[in-house]
């Protein structure tokens, strides 16, 4: 009986939002062993590049203590118990054995920028620096046929082993001609299909690669879609947000290097360790939300007192992401921290459905019947007025010409 219940439970909730933070001792002991074997295998293998992690840390004047702090934080973020810390530290050093190919499709390169433009590289960025980036369309020096050759080489050498990172959406309109790459004029779609074929897994980073993002916003002129809409039969991880948080990219690579597997995903293929929680539930302004204290306009008394940004259109209550916990730029700050609402950048269709800067109830969105954009309440009041007029006409007509059933007296 109990395993039947378990089965039903699994069937229905495997893709649900539930976040299991404690999977029990035997699970972790078992995982620990598997990770150890995995790491010793990796250590024995040939590093793909010669970068030495501790050297790089030293060059950036990050001491052991800072590194260990980072290790604890990363272990906790991956929802692993503290006993995994030494393994996480080891995995960080072995990052140069994880071959990565990075494609750049229809986008603004914001996710690469997020990695590169930090004020001084922090450990997250360094870890991503030393992963063996075999091919990165934006960063590499090679161009033209030479770049093409480099890609072919990387794909052949690490066949079935490389992680494919994809940034940007895939334009499907006009046979994909909105975006082509390379000397042969290969469309983004064909390019992605070719390179994803031999990847161990595909990691879509940023709002565009995951759900189409801004290129896919109405009216979506290029018919942009996300990676999971075209790549089938491959493990895919989505790390949405605009830009994706480097911490979460590291988390996914780290999890892969450590366990050889992808982290647990939600129904939108987002890792639960990062997207299992709502912004709203970990927001520092939440007390003001519950109190009914809202910023009414930019710069008012409420804004000066860090009141809740709900009435300025904050979409934290409908957005799953961990920026309210890990923040950006090595936890310096995050959007709501600097006083502007969440625009739901980690959710599908965020530009159309979340990013208007007022509460949904008050925003002009497409009415269900199509046509002019109205707020839900305008639409509702419109319907109500129509109904009211209808009823009014009926009432007057009844009063004037109606027949009262009173036993033939009238």
């Amino acid at each position: 009986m109990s395993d039947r219940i378990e089965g039903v439970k699994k069937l229905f909730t495997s893709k649900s939002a539930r976040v299991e933070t404690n999977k029990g001792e035997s699970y972790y002991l078992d995982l620990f062993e598997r990770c150890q074997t995995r790491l010793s295998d990796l250590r024995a293998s040939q590093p793909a590049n010669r970068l030495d992690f501790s050297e790089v840390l030293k060059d950036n004047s990050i001491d052991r203590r800072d590194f260990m702090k980072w290790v604890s934080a990363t272990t906790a973020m991956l929802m692993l118990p503290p006993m995994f810390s030494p393994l996480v530290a080891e995995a960080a050093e072995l990052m140069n054995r994880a071959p990565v190919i990075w494609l750049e499709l229809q986008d603004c390169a914001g996710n690469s920028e997020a990695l590169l433009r930090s004020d001084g590289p922090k450990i997250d960025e360094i870890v991503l620096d030393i992963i063996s980036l075999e091919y990165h369309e934006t960063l590499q020096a090679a161009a033209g046929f030479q770049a093409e050759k480099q890609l072919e080489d990387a794909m052949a050498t690490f066949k079935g082993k490389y992680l494919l990172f994809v940034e940007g959406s895939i334009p499907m309109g006009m046979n994909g001609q909105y975006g082509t790459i390379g000397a042969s004029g290969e469309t983004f779609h064909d390019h992605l299909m070719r390179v994803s074929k031999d990847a161990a897994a595909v990691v879509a980073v940023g709002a565009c690669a995951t759900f189409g993002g801004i290129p896919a916003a109405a009216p979506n002129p290029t018919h942009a879609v996300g990676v999971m809409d075209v790549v089938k039969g491959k493990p895919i991880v989505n790390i949405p947000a605009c830009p994706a948080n480097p911490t979460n990219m590291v988390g996914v690579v780290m999890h892969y290097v450590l366990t050889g597997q992808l982290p647990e995903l939600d129904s939108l293929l987002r890792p639960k360790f990062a997207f299992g929680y709502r912004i709203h539930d970990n927001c520092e302004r939440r007390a003001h939300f519950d109190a009914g204290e809202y910023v009414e306009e930019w710069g008012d008394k409420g804004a000066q007192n860090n009141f809740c940004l709900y009435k300025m259109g904050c979409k934290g209550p409908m957005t799953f992401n961990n920026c309210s916990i890990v923040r950006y730029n090595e936890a310096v700050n995050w959007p709501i921290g600097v006083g502007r609402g969440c625009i739901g950048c980690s959710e599908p269709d965020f530009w159309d459905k979340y990013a208007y800067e007022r509460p949904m109830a008050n925003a002009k969105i497409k009415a269900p019947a199509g046509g002019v954009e109205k707020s839900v309440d305008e639409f509702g009041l419109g319907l109500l007025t129509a109904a009211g007029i209808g009823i009014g006409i009926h009432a007057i007509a009844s009063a004037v010409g109606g027949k009262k059933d009173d036993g033939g007296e009238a």
Partner: protein
Amino acid sequence: MSSEYKQVKRMTTAGRIIHWANAISMVVAIITGLYIGHPYYQTFIADGAVDKYVMAWNRWGHFIVAIIFDVTSIVIAYLFFFSRFEKAYKKVIPTRKNITEFFEVLINLVTLNRRKKFDSTHGDSFNSVYFLVFHLLLIWMLLSGLQLYVSGLESGISSIGNWWPWMLHIATDWTRVVSGGTVMDVRISHHYSMWFIVIWVIFHIYYQVWRTIFWKEGDIAIVFGGSKFVKEN
């Protein structure tokens, strides 16, 4: 005039209690729901955040009436099929008889009561279908509302037991898919549906009053005393 009026029982006590519990809950749900959607009063009062708790109370009120709706819906769903008094589902099955009755009642409304060719002693098909629409709207409100609610229970833990969020996921995760893919779509739909319910309520009240005035059978009394009066001839 010699015709006698006979009293016919139309609603049980339980039915009337449910009706009024629903009516009051609906008013509360609409007032608190609109506040949740766009907080429209009391933002600057000089108490500490913990003391006023305005949004929290509104959400609390909204959820309490939601639970009342939940429970009464289950009771109503049961009565719909198994009531010993009047099994309402028999009136919404599209049989020839029901369809004819449905249109006769509609024609009665449109012709301003000039034509009345059905038996108004018992509940009629038109009203039964109209109520069915309401119950479908209400069920949608419940499920979409519970989906919004369960997104705040992401740890899967609840003070009343982990079965609660688990069950809510099973029962309501599909609302995301059908309303457009995101939690926001569920919320948009939840808000639109409120307006459909408001319109439903307005016509419902108008129609019951209209019947009372034009049929002269005291229909409005059904919901208070449980019965109406029809002429015996």
